[in-house]
């Protein structure tokens, strides 16, 4: 779909953002490919929103360099105008109605597509009379989706855009996102916890944990880049050997590990002989494996 040799839409180098003494982002170096859909995954507090805010010029890195379309976005008017980031807790002026918001957006986004906005507003059934700030969680998310998609911003960022949306509305969002992206290719960055549901949409995946990048790769390469290994602890440990264990759960004599690296045929046949089960780890497994070590909790519960 996209040309890997093209200049990345976003380049971060050694980006750190500290709030008082805490590093929300810690020495993040990352390229985000232009024209691709990239998913930003990680647990709450991993630094996803901070990273997106810095890319959009809403926040500023404490140290490190940030380039969006070749320029530091902070206070750079053309660069900021080419980015759309509607926050998950976006504020609107008190008495603003839907019509007010839809009048405001085209003043700022030169590529605004009115027809697309109208289509989305109708499909999400957004109320016209209610003040926007009184919208429900789902309506607020829908409005954010309308603003993000209809902006056609060269870099469009969605921060957990599905909050409060039911399955039907979410599926509609994925449909329109993919349709409009195919018709008007642009760089899309989205954070999500609904990994199983949204991973087919993604071309690239970045996994963030405790302010650091733990994985950044093509989604197709990341799927199956780790495996779930489970069975009797002795057999599992013998099989895994010195491979890198991302997560381990042990209950009594049973173990379930997430192990780095793909399973090869030899490992598979060894596993079959030892009565150990090997399945490819999903993206969800991989994300869950980082940032949580359940063995301690479970062993605590056992004793």
């Amino acid at each position, binding site marked *: *779909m*996209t040309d890997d040799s093209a200049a990345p839409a976003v380049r971060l180098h050694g980006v750190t953002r500290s709030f008082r003494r805490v590093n929300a982002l810690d020495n993040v170096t990352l390229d985000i490919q232009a024209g*691709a*859909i990239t998913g930003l995954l990680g647990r709450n507090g991993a630094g996803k929103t901070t990273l997106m805010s810095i890319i959009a010029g809403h926040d500023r890195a404490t140290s490190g360099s940030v380039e969006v379309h070749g320029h530091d976005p902070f206070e750079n008017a053309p660069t900021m105008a080419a980015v759309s980031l509607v926050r998950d807790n976006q504020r609107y002026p008190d008495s603003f109605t839907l019509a007010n918001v839809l009048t405001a957006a085209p003043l700022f986004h030169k590529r605004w597509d009115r027809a697309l906005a109208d289509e989305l507003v109708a499909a999400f059934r957004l109320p016209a009379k209610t003040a926007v700030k009184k919208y429900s969680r789902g309506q607020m998310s829908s409005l954010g989706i309308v603003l993000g998609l209809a902006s056609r911003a060269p870099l469009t960022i969605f921060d957990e855009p599905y909050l409060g949306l039911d399955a039907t509305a979410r*599926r509609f969002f*994925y*449909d329109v996102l*993919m*349709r409009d992206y*195919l018709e008007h290719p642009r760089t899309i960055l989205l954070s999500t916890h609904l990994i199983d549901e949204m*991973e*087919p*949409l*993604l*071309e690239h995946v970045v996994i963030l944990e405790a302010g650091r990048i733990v994985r950044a790769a*093509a*989604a*197709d390469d990341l*799927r*199956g880049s780790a495996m779930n290994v489970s069975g009797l602890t002795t057999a599992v440990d013998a099989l895994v050997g010195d491979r890198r264990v991302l997560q381990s759960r042990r209950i009594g004599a049973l173990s379930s590990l997430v192990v780095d690296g793909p399973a090869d045929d030899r490992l598979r046949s060894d596993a079959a002989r030892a009565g150990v089960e090997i*399945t*490819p780890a*999903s993206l969800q497994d991989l994300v869950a494996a980082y940032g949580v070590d359940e063995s301690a909790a479970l062993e605590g519960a056992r004793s």
Partner: protein
Amino acid sequence: MLDDGKPIFQQIADSIADGILAGSFPEGTQVPSTNELAAFHRINPATVGKGLGLLVDRDILHKRRGLGMFVSEGARMRLQNERTASFRAAFVAPLLTEAASLGLDLETVHRIIDQEGTNS
């Protein structure tokens, strides 16, 4: 259409191959474009492209510049042969191994298969 375990691009390739085997995409006809498949399945076009690429590598599909992807001559036969080979590897070989461990001779295995065939 997505099931766990198999990579998504593999599933895309399999679904097109299934379509060719079932006759939905006769040889010489065009298959849906990357974008059509991406929009229809809500799957990233890069992933779809990778899936179609697998079929191009096996000469099941071929590109016609500016027109799209077409089913190659002999694709159905090749798929049938491939599937037959993997059927033997995945089902027949283990069947015979299991039969041997149960002490069943080939004749008995043939008889069991014939019975199963007439029952179903």
